[in-house]
């Protein structure tokens, strides 16, 4: 069962015929007004068809040349490259950023290790404690002297004093 609107649209487009047409036209309250409306609609349809139809291109040769070039370009490209250029795929995706960061860090570490290996190893004396200066009080110990020994085998530095005053055993108290 068609609605009135469906029948109306079909009537405007001359799609109704026979019994359907006669029944619909009989149902119209004002047939003259409806006919006028139908004529207006046909006029409007014709106008739209005319105005919206594709206009002929004026620079046909120019466009066809451009089109040919584009076709040649695209046919020369690898399908994968074409997919890469598609708007859905961007190079700077999160996994790629992660890989780029990882690769950069790895390169940095390799360079650091390389530079560190290039540097001369620290001398033995840097591992040993160094005496920069030493003095005994000349008033308390006028004959006092100091000597420095670096025992590399045990990695110990000894500051050896001589001539300090000898003290009684009581001084060993805690």
């Amino acid at each position, binding site marked *: 069962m068609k609605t009135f609107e469906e029948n109306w649209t079909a009537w405007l487009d001359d799609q109704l015929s026979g019994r359907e047409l006669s029944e619909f036209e009989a149902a119209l309250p004002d047939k003259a007004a409806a006919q006028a409306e139908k004529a207006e609609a046909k006029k409007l349809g014709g106008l739209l068809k005319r105005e919206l139809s594709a206009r002929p291109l004026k620079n046909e040769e120019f466009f066809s040349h451009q089109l040919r070039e584009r076709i040649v370009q695209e046919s020369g490209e690898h399908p994968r490259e074409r997919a890469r250029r598609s708007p859905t795929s961007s190079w700077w995706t999160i996994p790629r950023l992660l890989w780029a960061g990882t690769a950069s860090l790895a390169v940095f570490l390799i360079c650091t290790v390389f530079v560190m290996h290039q540097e001369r190893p620290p001398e033995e004396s840097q*591992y040993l*404690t160094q005496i*920069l200066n030493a*003095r005994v*009080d000349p008033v308390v110990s006028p004959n006092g002297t100091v000597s420095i020994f670096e025992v590399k085998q045990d*990695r110990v530095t000894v500051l050896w004093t001589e001539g300090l005053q000898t003290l009684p055993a009581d001084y060993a108290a805690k």
Partner: protein
Amino acid sequence: MHRSPAVVIFVLLLTTTVAPASQAAEKVWSGLVIAENVTEPQPIPSELTRIEGLLKKFFGYNQFKVIGQSQKTLKTGQEDWLATSKFFGLHVDARGETEGGYVLNLKLYKEKELLLETEAKLSKRSPLVIKGPQVGGGQLLLVLVVQ
């Protein structure tokens, strides 16, 4: 799932790069030690076990007894502290951290009398032993160790 290896490698590399930057504070043990020759020597204090062989060989004593000590945690490398016994005092003044150690100014006092003053770059791997005055039949030693 191809993202997970990248994350793991990234975190590992980041950890290895950043981790060495964080270093723990270090302790310096400073002790006043009386070295003596006795018939029944006591076991050497734990702080000196690392250099026991050297002490015995170098100074010729068989017993090493701690009569005063101090253990200081260095955070800035600018700290100062005192290790004392009844009659001796060792004042240690740290004057900054250098590559692999600390610059220390050391003063040995007998009561209020300054006996010895020295400035040393104490390495983290190398203890410092100072021979002090003779005390009775033994010897006063000053020992500094980064622990």
